[in-house]
């Protein structure tokens, strides 16, 4: 016998042995019989100081249908209340704005960031996936999703394929998704860069956009404790991407002039994502980096690290840190100047030069062999990273998570 791959045998064997031994340990511990339902549920409470509060319950269900077929269902309910920056800048005097419906007004005091207090919404989303093997080493996941809020609907389908090779040490993934969204803003779709008023100019009662995504990725088992993943996402959006409720302040002309924002009707996006998971005895390190860029000239870097400390057999503590830095869109303006109104403009601070720092801790406990409870508490700070002097957004969040098999 002359093993062609003699050099790499030990490595491949080590990986195979890990899945053999840990797989058995897992099944022996979980005791989960075939065809059980797995449920993962959580409630997120997210609150920005003086601004938006979100309560978001999520329930995910997974059912083994036998023969490696799985049904995955996910239900999300988002409830949003509070005030959101409308895009206008704070000034030395009180400012009065028309609500989107045109039926009323709200006033912001001098030297306060104008916030739209009518901001509230509830979103319901349902996602269903069917996971099936195509043969021994390839599998497909077909999905469909629908979501609804009072002024927004989204419908989407997706298909993902993965192929294991190199003794299942390497997985190639390719997928595509398309979403068709429609928006019917309160008071109609405002014509971009026209003045905010009770009788605003509109282009109609509703508008739509299409979001297309392609993904290719590779996951590689490096050794018995390390796994690496690299994904490339290419996206293309077309249609109405403007926020119909956001405005910009125009300086240098008549006082208190506000124009509805206007964004390009196409966007080409790319994102490169790299992730490594490393095990150290009982502990796990999760490191990831994402680079995003698009033809609005927005580019961003995201670095995230999580370390899971095992505290005995049943408890763990996981500190998490995330840092996000973004370069602004080429049509972002803190405010506009009279006489120099561009074709596209938005004062949405989420398109500005900004950085976000998030710190969180997660504590988990195995209640019994089939259920786990975890709580995650964190703090986020979003701040300007350029000339635009918008106010920091500070948020606190608490997430409760409960996972069980039944």
């Amino acid at each position, binding site marked *: *016998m*002359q*093993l*062609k*791959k*003699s*050099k*790499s*045998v*030990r490595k*491949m*064997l*080590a990986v*195979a*042995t890990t*899945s*053999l*031994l840990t*797989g*058995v*340990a897992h*099944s*022996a511990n979980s005791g989960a019989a*075939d065809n059980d339902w797995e449920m993962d549920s959580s409630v997120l409470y997210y609150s920005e100081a003086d601004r938006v509060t979100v309560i978001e319950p999520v329930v995910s269900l997974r059912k083994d249908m036998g*023969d*490696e077929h799985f049904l995955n269902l996910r239900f999300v309910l988002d409830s949003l209340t509070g005030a959101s920056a409308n895009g206008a800048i704070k000034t030395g005097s009180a400012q009065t704005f028309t609500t989107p419906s045109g039926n009323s007004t709200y006033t912001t005091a001098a030297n306060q960031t104008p916030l739209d207090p009518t901001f509230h919404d509830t979103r319901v989303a349902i996602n269903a996936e069917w996971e099936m*093997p195509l*043969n*021994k080493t390839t599998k497909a996941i077909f999905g469909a999703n629908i979501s609804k809020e009072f002024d927004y609907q989204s419908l989407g389908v997706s298909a993902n394929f993965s192929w294991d090779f190199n*003794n*299942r040490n390497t997985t190639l993934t390719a997928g595509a998704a398309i979403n068709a969204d429609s928006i019917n803003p309160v008071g109609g779709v405002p014509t971009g860069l026209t003045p905010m008023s009770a009788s605003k100019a509109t282009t109609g009662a509703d508008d739509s956009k299409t979001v297309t995504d392609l993904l290719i990725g590779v996951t590689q088992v490096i050794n*018995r404790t390390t796994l690496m993943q690299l994904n490339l996402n290419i996206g293309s959006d077309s249609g109405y991407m403007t926020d119909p409720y956001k405005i910009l302040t125009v300086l240098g002309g008549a006082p208190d002039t506000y124009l509805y924002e206007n964004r390009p009707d196409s966007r080409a996006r790319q994102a490169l994502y790299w992730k490594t998971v490393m095990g150290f005895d009982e502990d796990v390190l999760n490191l990831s980096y994402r680079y995003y860029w698009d033809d609005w000239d927005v580019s961003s870097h995201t670095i995230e690290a999580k370390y899971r400390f095992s505290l005995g*057999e049943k408890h763990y503590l996981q500190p998490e840190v995330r840092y996000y830095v973004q370069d602004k869109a080429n049509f972002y303006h803190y405010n506009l100047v009279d006489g120099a109104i561009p074709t596209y403009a938005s004062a949405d601070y989420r398109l500005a030069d900004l950085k976000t720092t998030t710190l969180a801790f997660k504590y988990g406990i195995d209640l019994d062999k089939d259920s786990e409870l975890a709580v995650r508490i964190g703090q986020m700070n979003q701040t300007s990273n350029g000339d635009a002097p918008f106010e920091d957004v500070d948020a606190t969040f608490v997430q409760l998570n409960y996972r069980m098999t039944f």
Partner: protein
Amino acid sequence: MSFNVKQEDGFWRGEFQSMASPCELLIETDEESLAYSLTKLAFEEASRIEQKFSRYRQDNIIYKINTSHGKKISVDEETALLLDYADQCFHMSDGFFDVTSGVLREAWKFDCSDNVPGRNKVKAILPRVGWQKVSWNKPNFSMPEGMEIDLGGIGKEYAVDRTAMLTRAHTDNSVLINYGGDLYATKAKNDGNGWLIGIEKPNLKSNQVKNKNKQRKSVKEFQLKQGGIATSGDVYRYLLKDGIRYSHILDPHTGWPIKDAPHSITVVAESCIEAGILATLGMLNGKSAKRFLKAQDIKFWIN
């Protein structure tokens, strides 16, 4: 069948018989209760694995598969993991490690005699050998009528590793597991040393082999702190005809013994099952055994 424990100098020894081998645990402790509970745990796990995967029984999944007559059998998660493992070992060894090669025993009886089978007899069995002929699509397994699988080549080592995992979950003390010469040490002893393992050099003159218990002697001593040790060998299992010694390591492609295989190979690896597979693959490499093992960058002994 049962087990017993006894105290020795600095450790407790638990003993039982399983998988047709003497099995023992050496436990660094003064406590009889710990020795008792660990040995009980080990005895139950070894017995469970023997019952579940022995090909000599008629009440287990292996029997069910081997008497399936080409029909599809749905297997449990643990069996699935072992079949996945067998599948991966088959592929990484270019088809030399094959759990379907057991039917070749119908032609080969390695009893130190000169009973070498005829070419036609071996040839007639070969169509029933070859993992590539089975259909394994978890959890469903099927194979052509007449084929058999035998996980005996990894069963004892698997039992050692499983016992080690259970032991670790039960105690932080150092434990050496020894199932018929396949070993695993969970950690270094309190004084920082490993367990002293004697690596035998077999005496190969046939007239002395018959008196094998007397002739066994350790020639190499090795301190095993953590990890597995396994040996693959044909010291007492071979055929001798016309001056040619036929090793019991069979090439599943030809149905004939591997030429010029060493008499035995002992390997140290992170787990016992890895040590066992690497030792077997070493044997399957015949006279290039040493080159193969060197390329793996592991501790090994060839005799």
